[in-house]
């Protein structure tokens, strides 16, 4: 029974020895689970005397501080400052994801309809920004957007404008930086969907009497919807926690939640509060993921093909 023996030795797909998965397991425990537990535990501890580190005394003070302002006299008043920052971050991330989506649909479908060798070259170009650190690329936008930068220079130089438009250190600059940073994460999944799209389906729809807009809405869009959902997740979630663009381009004026958290571990010296803010970000992220997972499940049900749930 040689056949039976080899079958037993090899086992069914995905049923290897438990230790075969140990590097992955170690990675998850050491680099994902442990930091999360540390953050969670810190958020329930007290502020250390000098603000560096924590005092091992259980406290809900950090969570109270999220919503209330406590005067020195001990009076508590509702304080929307941090909720406001969460909301701003949420809006910025959403705007970023939507702008990326609007740009990516035409870009990705255009790339997907080029001949194979051109397609490869274009995808290569999309990934080129990853070769340089995001920090350096974000600094580049400081140069591009400032009052003496090339855009304002061109506008005033040609006489179109008398005064340069202040762009740097505005919410606009933050969004520009965010869109720039995350655009490839939207283009690539949509491209992956669009590239698999069978354009003969569009021809069939035309043939059956559908005009252009209807073909796009009823045939092309459902086919690229999994890519759109994946792209929205890949852009929205990192955008929500982004630090560089609001810091360097928003000029600290348009703080997003990551900047506030960074401040708690730095200048403000309140680690437990920083940890509590982080936990809040985590909760919001998970809620958003649940919404997207539900969307993806609906799409995969109506599409009857490979789902993107695994990715989520």
């Amino acid at each position: 029974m040689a056949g039976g023996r080899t079958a037993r030795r090899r086992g069914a797909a995905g049923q290897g020895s438990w230790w075969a998965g140990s590097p992955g397991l170690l990675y998850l425990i050491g680099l994902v689970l442990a930091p999360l537990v540390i953050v969670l535990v810190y958020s329930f501890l007290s502020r250390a005397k000098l603000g560096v580190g924590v005092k091992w005394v259980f406290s809900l003070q950090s969570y109270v501080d999220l919503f209330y302002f406590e005067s020195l006299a001990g009076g508590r008043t509702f304080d929307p400052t941090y909720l406001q920052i969460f909301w701003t971050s949420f809006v910025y991330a959403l705007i970023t994801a939507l702008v990326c989506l609007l740009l990516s649909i035409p870009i990705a479908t255009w790339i997907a309809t080029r001949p194979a060798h051109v397609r490869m070259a274009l995808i290569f170009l999309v990934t080129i920004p990853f070769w340089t650190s995001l920090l350096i690329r974000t600094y580049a936008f400081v140069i591009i957007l400032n009052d003496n930068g090339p855009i304002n220079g061109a506008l005033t130089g040609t006489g179109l404008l008398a005064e340069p438009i202040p762009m740097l250190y505005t919410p606009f600059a933050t969004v520009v930086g965010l869109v720039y940073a995350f655009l490839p994460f939207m283009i690539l999944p949509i491209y992956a969907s669009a590239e698999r799209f069978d354009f003969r389906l569009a021809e069939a729809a035309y043939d059956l009497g559908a005009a252009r807009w209807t073909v796009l809405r009823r045939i092309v869009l459902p086919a690229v919807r999994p890519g759109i959902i994946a792209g929205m997740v890949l852009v929205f979630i990192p955008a929500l926690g982004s630090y560089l663009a609001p810091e360097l381009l928003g000029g600290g004026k348009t703080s997003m939640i990551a900047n506030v958290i960074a401040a708690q571990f730095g200048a403000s010296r309140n680690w437990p509060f920083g940890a509590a803010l982080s936990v809040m970000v985590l909760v919001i992220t998970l809620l958003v993921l649940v919404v997207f997972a539900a969307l993806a499940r609906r799409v995969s049900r109506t599409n009857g093909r490979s789902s993107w749930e695994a990715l989520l």
Partner: protein
Amino acid sequence: MGSALSIREVTKVFPTPEGGEVKALDRVSLEVEDGTFMVLLGPSGCGKTTLLRCIAGLEAHDSGEIDLHGSRIDDVPVWKRRVNTVFQSYALFPHMTVAKNIAFGLEMDGMAKADIDSRVESTLELVRLAGLGARRPSQLSGGQQQRVALARALAKEPEVLLLDEPLSALDLKLRRGMQLELKRLQRQTNITFILVTHDQEEAMAMGDQVAVFDSGQIVQTGPPREVYLSPRTRFVADFIGEANVLSAQAGATGLEIEGFGVLPADCLADAAADSGPGGTIYLAVRPENVTVEADEVGNGTIVDVTFVGGDVHLTVQLGAIRITARRPSTGTANDERTIAEGDRVRVGFRPQSVRIVEE
């Protein structure tokens, strides 16, 4: 009966990747009678699919005119033409059920919901898929998907139905069945069908009319029987069925046929003489019309014997040329004798079975 579709001098040129040009359609003209089953037949790359796409409006021709029931449709966009296509790949919408696929085209016509439902139902019955409306295309077999593609196009009751190699993805047995099915559907609906195929047997089996394509041109149009029995050119003789094409020259003593020697002057010789002194004509002889008799002092030698079931194919070396002959594998006493490679034989043909074809 009037003309459902009239195509006049349609030309379509495609650029090649090397920077050249290829004429996919070269001044093609074709009349398709209302309610007929027209088959466009030709080898791949001959332009037949391009013509179909020009009729559908998926491709714009460079010059010429296409009329649908008397009105010109060249500038009518694809979605407004009362013409529908069954695609080679079926092109069923994967995210819609079978019923939704069929309903799609009807919705585009702005048909009322209740009418759509009953039309979808009756069309599914027509293609014998009743009860499968709720399935997805991925849950159907190839043959069933083919029927859905048919139903989707037929539901719109087009003036002309275009079928682009619809059976090429099916296995042989299923294909035979679908050929009969398509013919039945055409008779039943009385819609004009234009079907593209490279399979000459399929063309013969289904078409009321066959138009044979050769490198961007229609070389012969007619009922399948006529095209088979009287091929106009060497290409048609060769493409529709098999044919031995022999060159022949009118000499002083009669017609000198390549491999066979001189034949006494007769009508064939006259035809050869008409093409000028010493003019060459081409004769097409079907393999079933070639006679092969065992003869020790015959003019040919058997070089190959292939048994293909009902028939035996014989290849005979005749001087410098090779002739293919075909005869039933069973039946007459003569066939009991095994013909083997190397046998000397006498090869001949009945003069009345010979057709003169253009080069």
